[in-house]
């Protein structure tokens, strides 16, 4: 009887209906239910409209468009799975998939690995290392576009580029066109993207290490453990929750990367730095193959969903 009036978690959440006995609660709850309706829609309508235009419609429409052949302003032609068949026989796209995999995995390993190590090292002297953590975290506060521009200066092909100059100290006259050489472009892009990416894992893992009970460390030191042992046996396993979150955030960020690729390499040279997220932009917005680009976006979407399954399950279960 109660359930029909106040569904799901209302008893725990609303408190009131569970505390007042019998008839009165029933009456109140029923009045509330009817009374909530208009107010809820009043408060939600603008949000639902904007969310509908900016998220729901594009999501459905991208999937719909991926089944059409669209050339410029001509009438779209339904071609079923045609775009997908074309994608997976397109050597450029297959190359893009490999690039995406390398870019996503490498930036995540670099950012999270380094951030995690630095977090554990700084946990031995939290206060003294604070300014340096802020310096590393600051890179995370710089937009990808500006970060990309900064790295262009470091990667300049002549001796005016810091990287060439640094190598030139040992090997005079060294001049590698880092961004112009398809063999090196992807790797320097990965380094540049990870530069900004270390800050967040550092902060997340540091918070994770800080939340380990101090008594554990005290016990370990009293038993004569070294810093290395404390790091390996206490900090590493107990900071894993923070590491997991950091890995997930970095994977998502790398899959959706666009700005830094656009500024630093533009996907080149010879499309060697094109990830799926950049490929869809190029096909749809510069070649105007909207249907083809939409199909690539759906592939990106599948990758994003696969990576996000644990987070989605957790959020859905926690949505009360």
């Amino acid at each position, binding site marked *: 009887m109660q359930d029909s009036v*106040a569904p799901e978690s209302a008893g725990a959440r*609303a408190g*009131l209906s569970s505390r007042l006995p019998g008839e009165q609660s029933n009456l109140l709850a029923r009045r*509330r239910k009817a009374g*909530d309706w208009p*107010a*809820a829609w009043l408060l939600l309508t603008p*949000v*639902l409209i*904007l*969310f509908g*235009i900016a*998220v729901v419609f*594009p999501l459905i429409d*991208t999937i719909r468009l991926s089944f059409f052949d669209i050339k410029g302003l001509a009438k779209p032609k339904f071609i079923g799975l045609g775009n997908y068949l074309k994608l997976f026989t397109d050597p450029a796209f297959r190359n893009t998939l490999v690039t995406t995999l390398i870019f996503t995995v490498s930036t995540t390993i670099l950012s999270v690995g380094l951030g995690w190590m*630095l977090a554990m*090292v*700084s*946990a*031995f*002297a939290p206060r003294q290392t604070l300014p*340096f*953590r*802020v310096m*590393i975290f600051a890179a995370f*506060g710089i*937009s990808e576009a*500006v*970060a990309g*521009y*900064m790295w262009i*200066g470091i990667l300049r092909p002549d001796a*005016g*580029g*810091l990287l060439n*100059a640094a190598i030139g100290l040992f090997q005079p006259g060294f001049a590698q066109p880092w961004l112009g050489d398809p063999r090196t472009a992807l790797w320097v892009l990965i380094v540049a993207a990870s*530069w900004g990416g270390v800050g967040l894992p550092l*902060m997340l893992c540091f918070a994770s290490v800080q939340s380990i009970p101090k008594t554990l460390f005290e016990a370990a030191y*009293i038993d004569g453990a070294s810093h290395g042992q404390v790091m390996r046996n206490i900090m590493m396993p107990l900071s894993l929750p923070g590491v997991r*979150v950091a890995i*997930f*955030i970095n994977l*998502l960020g790398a899959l959706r990367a*666009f*700005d830094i690729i*656009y*500024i630093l390499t533009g996907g080149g040279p010879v499309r060697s730095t094109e990830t799926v*997220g950049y490929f*869809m*932009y190029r096909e*749809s*917005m510069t070649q105007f193959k*909207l249907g083809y*680009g*939409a199909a690539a976006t759906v592939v*990106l979407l599948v990758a*994003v969903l696969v*990576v996000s399954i644990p987070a*989605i399950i957790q*959020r859905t279960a926690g949505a009360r």
Partner: protein
Amino acid sequence: MIGRAPRWPTIVLGVFGFIWIIPIVGIVMTSIRPLSETARGWWRTDSFTLTLSAWQRVWEAYPLAPAFVTTAILAALATAGTMLLTPAAAYAFHFLKFPFRRLLLIIIINAFVLPQQVVIIPLFQLWRELGLIDNFLAVLIPYVGLSFAWSIFLVKNFLEDFPTEVVEASRIDGAGPVQTFWHIVLPNSLSSVFATGILQFLWTWNALLLPLLYLRTNVPLPVILARVNGTYELNWDLQSVAAIVTTVVPLAVFLIFQRQFAAGAETRTGAKD
């Protein structure tokens, strides 16, 4: 930790910290030294002159000032939109009962995984049909609409700890749901609303992809930076000024609120642990 902190962690972090700010030092140095001196490397000190020449010339060379105004207007409007609409929705989801409540909530808070790439083709076609290309609304609508995916989650999480008794008391006293929101819940959840605002401000100030596609005449700073960067002129000094102008406001905001930002980014993109 027992006893005095050892010294080696500080040294390790110090080395990394200084390496990490080299790119930032690089563009600052390039912007305040003459091009002739920095052409072979901004770190060279054979001759060292400080000049604000690039800082004076850049305003003529690139449309930085109008772009700054555009960026500020877009970021302010998008931030205001998110800060006004998010708490109302979070309140409705948390305290009110209505059909499809849980379904809508699940859809909205899981949308945070979607990459921006999903919106660009459909909205490009829609804006073209509606004649909204080059209109601020073309970016403001997705800025605000996309923000709900994380902002509602963030504010609703805050409301989990909000004392239910207070809300119930207000309802028993005869206040309607909207009045309760306006007089009781909103004034007491401002900290989470401001955290949302800061995140949205940083995100919209730095946005490149959407304005690159949907705006033409009045474009924000990141788009200007992308344009001057693609010209292959040897204007390292001017371009560096443009880069600094683009990033100085969000970087300052970021550093002031860095603690909240680390916590917010966690709820924005990741699951809470």
